[in-house]
């Protein structure tokens, strides 16, 4: 077990501020020398698996694209070979990135992400060809971000060092949409940022990752304090509440900002992340129970207090009789899409969801998949996410430090619960919240952020994986990543 932080329990708000202020001011001890990581020689069996899966996923994407065009226009898509080139090219760039920067990382995550991205592209292209063009661009940016993340973050513990800086960045990102003239209201939620005239993005998508890093780092650092009773009330020992203060403050700030920006989906997501990481790091069920109570209480109060929350709950429970309310129509139409798809679906290019279901390429994209690919296709998407979540948690289990364990867990929670919340929302298991279906739904910020997210997961995976050398000798090396430390 590696503990990187201090053992003293003196974490206070001033520490947060001081660290944040101090960090950029401190002059570097010595100018960093740019040194490229070496190309690891020798066989990389995981990468070979990954390559095979990537090519298989690309073939599926191209096949679906062709089927959609056949269904819609009864012709082979005219640009099928350039399309094939782009799909395989992007996959190969990510794959070579892995070969170079994370050669022993998990082999399943990248192919699943690329496959989901491909399915999403096909569905978007089928309804909004113009959006699809920019989605390709965003996918390319995402792959570049994937590369940059793995290139910059050589060791997961680098992130641990800059936890307060990252928190500050997260705060700035979350506050950005509130700046007048900079932020923008879309569908009643203020979570967009405008840069220039044509470019806008959703900073919360990136903030969620930064918050996750901060939570993981902080909980890894303070888990003893949070779990072992040290304070005394009367003759009973209870856990010292003081270490909770900054974390609650950070969380409360996040919730407040989200509340002001009216983004219920991310509020749920960050809350879930926070509660689960707290429980996993401390092992105290009390936190989970407390979180659940807080959540239910908060939800009840919010439902009465905030008009938008109340409205969402109302249309969730009974959309048929509240068709005048915003968002009721898409829930009703979403169900009809699923029902009309049936088991086999109408076939790609033959559905009509786009005419009736609002936001078919973003919030409701799952309904479009359900109609055209049927129960078989929608289940395949769910199972793809399940595999992604399984791989993420497996990475967490093999990670070699508390921080990286919690980081991998947190990232998995983000992607897993984000997918669950939106799918359950479309299916009316939960109130619909306007978060994206990772990799599938249209949205540049979401796509790029999620590529960054899996890059971080792969970074942790690469560190936790047993290297071929270890597998040969049976001896586990203690370091984070043997080849980085090698001279």
């Amino acid at each position, binding site marked *: 077990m590696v503990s990187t932080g201090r053992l003293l329990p003196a974490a206070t708000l001033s520490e947060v501020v001081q660290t944040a202020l101090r960090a950029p001011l401190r002059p570097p001890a010595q100018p960093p020398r740019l040194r490229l990581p070496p190309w690891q020689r020798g066989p990389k069996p995981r990468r070979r698996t990954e390559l095979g899966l990537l090519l298989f996923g690309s073939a599926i994407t191209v096949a679906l694209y062709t089927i959609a065009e056949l269904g819609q226009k009864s012709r082979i898509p005219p640009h099928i070979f350039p399309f094939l080139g782009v799909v395989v090219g992007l996959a190969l760039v990510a794959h070579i990135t892995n070969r170079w920067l994370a050669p022993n990382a998990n082999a399943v995550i990248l192919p699943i992400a690329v496959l989901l991205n491909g399915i999403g592209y096909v569905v978007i292209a089928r309804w909004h060809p113009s959006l699809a063009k920019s989605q390709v661009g965003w996918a390319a940016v995402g792959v570049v971000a994937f590369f940059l993340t793995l290139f910059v973050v050589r060791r997961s513990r680098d992130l641990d060092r800059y936890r307060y800086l990252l928190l500050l960045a997260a705060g700035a990102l979350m506050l950005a949409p509130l700046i007048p003239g900079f932020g923008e209201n879309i569908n009643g939620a203020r979570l967009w940022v405008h840069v220039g005239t044509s470019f806008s993005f959703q900073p919360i998508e990136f903030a969620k990752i930064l918050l996750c890093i901060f939570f993981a780092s902080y909980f890894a650092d303070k888990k003893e304090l949070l779990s072992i009773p040290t304070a005394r009330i009367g003759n009973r020992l209870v856990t010292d509440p003081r270490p909770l203060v900054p974390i609650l403050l950070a969380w409360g700030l996040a919730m407040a900002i989200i509340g002001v920006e009216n983004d219920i989906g991310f509020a749920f997501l960050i809350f879930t992340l926070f509660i*689960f990481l707290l429980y*996993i790091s401390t092992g105290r069920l009390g936190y989970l129970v407390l979180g659940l109570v807080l959540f239910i209480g908060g939800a009840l109060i919010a439902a009465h207090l905030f008009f938008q929350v109340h409205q969402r709950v109302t249309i969730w429970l009974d959309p048929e009789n509240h068709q005048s309310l915003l968002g009721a129509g898409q829930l009703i*139409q979403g169900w009809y899409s*699923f*029902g009309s798809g049936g*088991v086999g679906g109408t076939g790609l290019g033959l559905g009509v969801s786009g005419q009736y279901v609002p936001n078919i390429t973003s919030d409701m994209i799952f309904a479009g998949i359900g109609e055209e690919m049927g*129960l078989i296709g929608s289940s395949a998407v769910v199972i793809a996410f399940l595999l992604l979540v399984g791989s993420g948690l497996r990475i967490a289990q093999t990670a070699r430090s508390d921080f990286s364990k919690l980081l991998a*867990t947190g990232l998995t929670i983000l992607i897993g619960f984000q997918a669950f919340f939106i799918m*359950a929302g479309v299916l009316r298991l939960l109130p619909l919240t306007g978060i994206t279906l990772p990799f599938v739904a249209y949205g540049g910020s979401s796509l790029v952020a999620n590529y960054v997210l899996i890059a971080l997961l792969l970074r942790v995976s690469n560190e936790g994986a047993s290297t071929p050398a270890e597998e040969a000798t049976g001896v586990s090396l203690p370091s984070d990543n043997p080849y980085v430390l090698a001279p």
Partner: protein
Amino acid sequence: MGRRIRWLGIVLILCFALVLIQLTNLQFRQAHQLASASANPRNQAKILDNARGDIVAADGSILAYSQALNIPGSYKYQRVYPTATARLFSDLVGYDSIKYGTWGIEYQYNDQLIAHAQPARSLSQFLNPTTATDDVTLTVQPKLQLAAQQALAGRDGAIVALNPNTGAVLAMYANPTYDPNLLASTSPTAQDQGRFFAVAKDSQGYDALASLAYAQRWAPGSTFKVITTSAAYDYAPLLVNKSYPVRVATPLPDSNLLLHNDGNTPCGGTIAQMLPPSCDPGYADLGLDIGGTNLYKQATQFGYDSVPPLDIPGVVASNFPTPAELKDNLPGVAYSAIGQEDVAATALQGALEASAIANGGVIMTPHLMAQIRDSQGNLVTNFGLKPWMRATTQATAAAITPLMEEVVTSGTAGQVGFLPEDQVAAKTGTAQAGQQNQLVTAWMIAFAPASQPRVAIAVVLPDQAFDVTGAKAAGPVMKAMIEAALALTGPLPPVSPAPHYTPPPPAGATTTTTAKAPGATTTSTAAGAGTTTTTPPTTAPAATTTSPPSTTAPTTAPPPPTT
């Protein structure tokens, strides 16, 4: 920490399992329900694409068609019933209304009229099924329909004319009528208005939707004596030549009632003497001799107490009291024998009775649809020859025909002025109606020519003044109809005996006769006969009927081409 991560994994698996369960629920368990829900816009889109085929009369005139609208976001077509024939055919064609659904032929053949999947003729059609509408051609002759409208001259009443050999409805007209164009409007208020007019009661308490031709019943009066007579022939042959005393009235058993003859003229004798003058006391006695059970049997053989299988919605059954109801009610038996008391018949039933006698005792299935053609003009189906009921024996029908001719030559219809060359066989009816029997329902059923019947007609005029008789009110109407019908169908078809009734052959044998080229050949599947009949040459391609040789039964001539 590892154990707790595993717990998180279980939580996430449960979450995704919930999603999978709900997906299965929506896409498998409730899929059909959701897909066919009326609020599902996929179905509404189908409704908006309301293309329908044409409804065409026997002479080729179009009775209903769909006109393209070209209004974005609205219905693609407007159903149009040409004004010249809209009211004339409203009882038959019905309507296609957004709000009130379909009625009439529009209802009956909705599945063929709307766009529906076409059978694949090639691999690409199999992979990508096409939809198209079919056109329905009716057996109804607009000229005869118009003659019926003119003969009624606006009075409430109904006229049904059948081809007794095939069951084809040649005309079916009843007042009041309604305008289906209002109901077919895309404007909801116009539809409401159209519906209001269609169900509004007129001064005699009738509305247009409950057609007087097939959805209203009145006591058939003396026209029922045709059935009583055939009951005597079929069930009590000894009574045929029994002579009943000549008298003005007959006392009814189990009561102190006297049944008077119409006009209090004395009458009596055998059936042959009683039917032409329509002797009420004699037929009451005859009915009592035949008995309620036999009368009931004979009435049901003629179609009473079952809904005639006319291919249109809203047809009601005519009523004859059951043996149980008549068992201890001998006056009721007497009154039923002359078509009074609880006996009630539709105009359609009257026409079926006439066609039974005209067609050698067999009632052919009455039908409005002649054939259905697809949008390319290929024959999809035609109605074919389908017997409905064996009403009476051929011998009985042959025996009753001259009696009905006598009704015209020397009986109650003698003053109507039927042309002798038309050889009309008829029976009048003057049924008492109203609260205090202050009104009469004027009936007349007839077929012509008696030697080779080509048309069987029923005329009913309800709620006439008390001094009116069936012959006086319905007679001129019947005369006009017979003359119009015989003028219409042209020269007599070659003589061939009426078809012999056979039980319906196995399913599929009689239902559809197909033609390889439209109108070229038709194959009759009625019981085979050794004769080959050819219709007289016309401008249309001659329809030849070839039947396999057989020794048992004669065959019928096919209906003359109606184009």
